């Protein structure tokens, strides 16, 4: 087991190298020059010589591969460079934004699970009856609602009209996280309700459920002990994927609610060609990718005895 986890972590190194090199090349492909952008950002006019000096200082005149090697060398020393825009150390400013994204991820995932699992089970148990139709109707609406529209509607009703929650920012304590988390959870829960419903329905069709019913085991017990546990596998995999993209920061939602997380940071960095910040973000994404996949594997391993006991082929 430990060996497996270790091997997976080792696999991370080539992924990290590949993905950072790729992003280096991608950002260098863009036509706009970082120094020109810095000039327009900071509003100070620079002469051509000054610009060239600055380019040399930042190492932008060297070939991409050399820039990459230099960056990699610094990274190993724990130095991710300084932001072109703010001049602050990248690592520190990245770490300062992480809690915002983490809390939003946790809050929205909890909401999603809290909504979609009970409703998905209810819809499956009452298949093709009123609760099922109602739940599917709402999940349909949630699926068709773009998150920026949902966010603006929530702001309009709950912040501007009812004045329950603050419009934006994270200064309002727990209240300020409610609207962004609900926005994210709406779309995810709508998707998951369908998946939970499908997973539970499929599980209810299995022969062991018939067997359990025939043995006179109560329906509730079958549902909560056997069926739910078996359907968790699908749900856990989905949740892992969602957690991955949430931890990457949700650019649109974070920017609407002025939520100072890594997604907003990435979008700002991308539009300003702030290469060091983009690189930090890319590393973060790669780490999430590997860790989340590993976590999903381990959870499946734990939940599914067929995988755990190494009898994958057995029915």
């Amino acid at each position: 087991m430990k060996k497996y986890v270790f091997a997976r972590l080792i696999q991370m190194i080539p992924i990290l190298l590949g993905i950072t090199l790729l992003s280096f090349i991608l950002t260098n492909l863009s036509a706009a020059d970082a120094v020109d952008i810095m000039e327009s950002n900071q509003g100070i006019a620079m002469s051509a010589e000054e610009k060239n000096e600055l380019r040399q200082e930042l190492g932008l005149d060297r070939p991409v591969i050399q820039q990459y090697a230099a960056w990699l060398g610094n990274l190993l020393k724990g130095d991710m460079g300084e932001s072109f825009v703010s001049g602050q150390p990248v690592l520190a400013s990245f770490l300062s934004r992480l809690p915002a994204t983490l809390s939003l991820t946790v809050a929205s995932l909890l909401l999603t699970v809290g909504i979609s699992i009970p409703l998905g089970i209810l819809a499956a148990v009452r298949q093709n009856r009123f609760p099922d139709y109602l739940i599917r109707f709402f999940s349909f609406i949630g699926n068709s609602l773009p998150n920026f529209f949902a966010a603006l509607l929530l702001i309009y009703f709950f912040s501007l009209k009812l004045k329950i929650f603050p419009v934006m920012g994270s200064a309002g304590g727990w209240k300020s996280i409610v609207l962004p988390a609900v926005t994210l959870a709406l779309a995810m829960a709508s998707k998951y309700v369908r998946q939970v419903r499908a997973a539970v329905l499929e599980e209810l069709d299995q022969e062991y459920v018939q067997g359990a019913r025939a043995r006179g085991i109560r329906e509730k017990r079958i549902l909560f002990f056997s069926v739910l546990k078996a359907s968790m596998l699908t749900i856990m995999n989905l949740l892992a994927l969602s957690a991955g993209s949430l931890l990457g920061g949700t650019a649109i939602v974070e920017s609407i609610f002025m939520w100072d997380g890594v997604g907003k940071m990435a979008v700002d960095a991308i539009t300003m060609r702030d290469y060091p910040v983009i690189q930090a973000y890319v590393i973060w994404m790669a780490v999430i990718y590997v860790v989340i996949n590993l976590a999903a594997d381990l959870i499946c391993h734990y939940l599914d005895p067929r995988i755990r006991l190494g009898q994958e082929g057995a029915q």
Partner: protein
Amino acid sequence: MREKKTIVRKQKAPGKGIKLKLILWGSLALLILLTAAFAPYITPHDPYEQDLGRALWAPCREYLLGTDRYGRDMLSRVIMGARTSVFSAVLLVLITTVTGSVAGTVCGYHGGKLDTFLMRVSDVFLAFPGMVFAIAAASVLKGGLFGAVAALALISWPKYARIVRSQVMAIKNAPYMEAARLAGSGTVKIIFRHMLPNIAGPVVTTAVLDMGTMMMEIAGLSFLGLGAAPPAAEWGSMMSNGRSMLQTSPWVILAPGCAIFLTVMIFNLLGDTVRDLLDPRQRKKEELPL
């Protein structure tokens, strides 16, 4: 196994009412496409004509959906926006379907190193959150709406490649394929005559289901300022520009927002119906790329 299951569980007879649904959602989708196509001829006002004297009017008889901060008629802009939003989504779906299908067919039919390579590439695209990639690509491409479409195409093809590849591999060695080969059909003929018609179902289903998602993603990029640029009428950028007026004149947000919502919903309903029609037992596993 399968037959047993359908006997065990009570299920509604498939096919009942599906044609009716198809006609209903299909004609609504067609209506949207026609609106998009003839947008310039059916707008009640000029969608670009500014008149600050009538800025931010609430909906009234003359301006059914109100006016924006430059006094432009919202209804006309929403109709014009249909053209931008719907056509870019159609274009995007076409590009991804074609490129994904070509890649998937080549991978599935030939296998080998190219297959391994393309599938690893698609793994990377599927694993990373698409929107962030799209934002990066759109800002590099800087081509406005077309840049946004290209960026989303770049991240969306692997899904189709996966579906097509698995389908191709599943039927590659079917007896009728052997028969076609023995009858002397060349690779091209086999692919176009015998393979593509058989795998078209899931691809078409995915494509129709994706219309709504793609529309939301294009609008999302425009909302972030990475797609259509003002003054172009596009639903996402119209909403982004109206954000600051949410409190005083909510119609500038509601009009384009509802337009996206309804359009996406109609295409989703159409997609579900097409899936039910082509694929009664819902191939869930194949629809999930991972």
